């Protein structure tokens, strides 16, 4: 008899709600939760069945016995491993204080538990991967609205026009969002796509601007200029809810459409027509403010402009625009009990300087890469331990060599993950988490027009000697003397403890896998949005008080990006719909679909270099070389070469992924501390590489 188990996918960080069918202790079927996703799921979701059966993942706790990265491990019991980690942490805590431990996780709906662990331990240094991802967008959003990047959701399905600046929304897949985009297009919506290359997203566009790499900011400035010139903005909304419009208009005056078109390499008429079109479609026009925008030196300002364009469209809290994500409170329901409600945030400066040295950055997760600096300089104090949960800094951050140099100052490196991460391979202890079908997780709140509580139940028993993260953190906390932060010892007790204030029971989740908190979407009265914007002035700020007070200009004069010297290219990277960065490269099914990445290069440029389709090419950074096959296309800007991120892995136990393809982050030497001082994001597309036909291409072959 098949049994339904409600869960949430763990193949990427989107965490789509799923329904799992289990028979005789085996997963037979996974589909998107029919009540939310109508069954839809992406390739990665279905490939979870292959991951579950794959023995090429850590099967029990491992303690390093050889040198770091040498790959010599002693398999140990959970008790031995946890005692070992606790003893090491205790030693560091005794010598340097608990603040010498950094705790990093991948963010998302369950990070509160990790934060509680970090604070319970006594360290303020809780962090995540985001300085190599969405920090610029987040901080840009805070500067405009006083709200973070999750301060709005986008009602794309009902929009009349969606504009994506490199946001590859149909390949960096979120199933529900992709359906919204397709629904919008089915309803006759317009879709403008801006990128240095054509993507799976761009082929669905109704308008495509192929821009010179690094000129997004110029295009956004030109758009603002033209919107103001054509008076295509919502005057009433600007008047009612914003400050600093005059200063904005004054600043963009120098950046007119002609200038922007020339700078970006596009047609001016196309740009002007675009503005005329959105002027007739607003407020149902959404400028996606970007997701992974740790790219260029001015990505923060580009994202600010995209947020500003949304404001000019007046698209706040309207159908087909940006909407405030509604909370349980909006439904008259008390929120879940937070794990961090049991602990006090340590009254200590963060070692990454966020909150005191850098006051304009969000001190929640801070900025991971700045801990490396602290490890090396011991300023403001020494960092001696790093625990990474579901986070692989060696894949996420650039310049792995520099990272290793910094980590050599640490006495303890722990990786808690379902798979071998490259960081895990270099660490001292691997604590293997059960893959998502084999574990339960705390209940999460999903905010939105119709907020809900949702959970992940255990579908099947773990195949190997692995544990769910809640149990790992609970057992570690017990050993370190703060087990009372997690006052439960079974998942049922944990859920009941979380749910207590809400009045719901875990049985309420049985029918649909979640508890809806409202039947109808909730909208605020658009005429009464006062108090919703959390800026110092309470208004949407074109001139940001927060930035100005910290000596950072609200508007930065545009600087044209450097052109790569002859024979060199700007290395840009992105996503494929069949892989979630490095997480899935070794998955048998997904590896079969896409075993390695290629280097996209402009056809005409390739011809000059004597490179043909499928040739091996060497991609040369400073000291690192990657060799992959070339893919020639006319639809990439000649200044750029592109590859899919996550490949070129060097964990020998991942036989499929081992040295398959090329790693962009290993070529990004020197970028580890190249931070945008205004946005906090790294500038990962500011690397020029040399491309040449590789000597690996056979000229002739001799067989004896």
């Amino acid at each position, binding site marked *: 008899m098949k049994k339904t188990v409600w869960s949430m996918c763990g193949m990427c960080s989107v965490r789509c709600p799923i329904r799992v069918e289990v028979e005789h202790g085996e997963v037979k*079927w*996974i*589909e*998107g939760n029919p009540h939310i996703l*109508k*069954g*839809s*799921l*992406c*390739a*990665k*979701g*279905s*490939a979870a*069945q*292959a991951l579950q059966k794959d023995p090429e993942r850590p099967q029990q706790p491992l303690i390093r016995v050889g040198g770091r990265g040498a790959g010599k491990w002693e398999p140990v019991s959970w008790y031995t491993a946890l005692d070992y980690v606790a003893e090491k942490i205790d030693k560091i805590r005794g010598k340097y204080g608990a603040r010498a431990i950094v705790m990093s996780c991948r963010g998302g709906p369950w990070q509160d538990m990790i934060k509680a662990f970090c604070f319970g331990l006594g360290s303020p240094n809780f962090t995540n991967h985001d300085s190599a991802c969405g920090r610029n967008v987040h901080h840009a959003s805070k500067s405009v609205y006083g709200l973070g990047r999750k301060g709005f959701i986008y009602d794309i399905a009902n929009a009349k026009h969606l504009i994506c600046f490199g946001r590859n929304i*149909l*390949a960096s*897949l979120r*199933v529900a969002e*992709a*359906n919204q985009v*397709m629904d919008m*297009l*089915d309803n006759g919506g317009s879709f403008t796509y801006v990128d240095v290359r*054509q993507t*799976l*997203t*761009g*082929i*669905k*566009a*109704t*308008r*495509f601007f192929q821009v010179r790499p690094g000129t997004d900011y110029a295009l956004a400035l030109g758009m603002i200029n033209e919107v103001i010139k054509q008076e295509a903005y919502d005057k009433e909304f600007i008047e009612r809810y914003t400050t600093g419009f005059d200063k904005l208009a004054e600043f963009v005056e120098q950046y007119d459409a002609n200038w922007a078109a020339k700078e970006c390499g596009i047609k001016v008429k*196309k740009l002007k027509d675009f503005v005329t079109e959105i002027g007739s479609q607003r407020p149902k026009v959404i400028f996606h403010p970007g997701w992974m925008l740790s790219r260029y030196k001015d990505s923060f300002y580009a994202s600010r402009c995209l947020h500003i364009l949304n404001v000019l469209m007046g698209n706040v809290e309207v159908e087909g625009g940006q909407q405030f994500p509604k909370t349980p409170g909006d439904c008259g329901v008390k929120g879940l009990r937070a794990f961090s409600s049991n602990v006090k945030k340590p009254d200590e400066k963060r070692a990454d300087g966020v909150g005191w040295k850098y006051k304009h950055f969000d001190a929640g997760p801070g900025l991971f890469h700045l801990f490396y600096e602290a490890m090396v300089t011991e300023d403001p104090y020494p960092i001696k331990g790093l625990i990474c949960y579901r986070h692989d800094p060696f894949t996420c951050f650039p310049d792995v060599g520099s990272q290793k140099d910094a980590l050599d100052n640490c006495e303890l490196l722990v990786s808690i993950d379902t798979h071998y991460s490259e960081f895990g391979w270099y660490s001292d202890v691997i604590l293997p988490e059960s893959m998502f079908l084999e574990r339960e997780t705390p209940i999460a709140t999903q905010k939105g027009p119709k907020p809900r509580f949702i959970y992940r139940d255990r579908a099947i028993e773990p195949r190997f000697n692995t544990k769910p993260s809640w149990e790992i953190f609970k057992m570690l906390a017990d050993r370190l003397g703060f087990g009372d932060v997690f006052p439960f010892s079974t998942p049922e007790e944990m859920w009941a403890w979380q749910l207590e204030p809400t009045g719901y029971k875990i049985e309420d989740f049985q029918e649909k896998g979640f508890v809806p908190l409202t039947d109808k979407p909730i909208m605020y009265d658009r005429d009464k949005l006062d108090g919703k914007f959390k800026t110092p002035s309470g208004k949407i700020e074109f001139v940001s008080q927060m930035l100005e007070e910290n000596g950072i200009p609200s508007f930065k004069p545009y600087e044209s990006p450097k052109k790569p010297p002859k024979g060199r290219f700007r290395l840009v990277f992105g996503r494929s*719909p*069949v892989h979630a960065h490095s997480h899935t490269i070794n998955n*048998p*099914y*997904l*590896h*079969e*679909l896409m075993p390695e990445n290629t280097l996209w290069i402009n056809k005409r440029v390739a011809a000059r270099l004597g490179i043909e389709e499928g040739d091996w090419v060497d991609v040369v950074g400073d000291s690192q070389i990657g060799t992959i096959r070339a893919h020639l*296309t006319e*639809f990439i800007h000649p200044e750029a070469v592109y590859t899919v991120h996550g490949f070129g892995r060097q964990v020998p136990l991942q036989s499929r992924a081992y040295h398959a393809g090329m790693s962009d982050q290993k070529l990004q030497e020197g970028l580890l501390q190249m931070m945008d001082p205004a946005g906090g994001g790294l500038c990962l597309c500011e690397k020029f590489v040399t491309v040449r036909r590789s000597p690996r291409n056979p000229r002739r072959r001799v067989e004896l």
Partner: protein
Amino acid sequence: MKKYMIYLNSKRCIGCHGCEVHCKANKDLPVGPLLCEISHEPLKSIRGVPKTEFHFRSCYHCEDPYCVPICPTGAMQQREDGIVFVEQEKCIGCMACAGACPWNIPQFNPATGKAVKCDYCMDRVDQGLKPACVTKCTTRALKFVTLTEI
């Protein structure tokens, strides 16, 4: 009489290859056989936007299939509703079916040593469900269509 068809709305297809994996996972197939496939034309610029069309291909479930009569053991069969399928118990893995098929549709399953092909997930269809690829299609671009005579 052929009763069913799988139709791809290329406008909604985003080329995510989800269907291919949904199929493999449902049939518990090893690396190797792929029972349905998404392909696309090279990109062509249409009014300034590089575009392409996606194609979905699984078995055509021919009305008069070549693979059925050539099967030496009677494993390859056609149902009344037109679904062409392999009865796994009878299959000896000789792959004569693949040779007879103009498109080489039947594939060898290295895990079982037998032929395997798209059967529209007939176990699901018989329960009133849709094939795996259609049920889970990321953007609901695939449709399972029941044909009617006009």
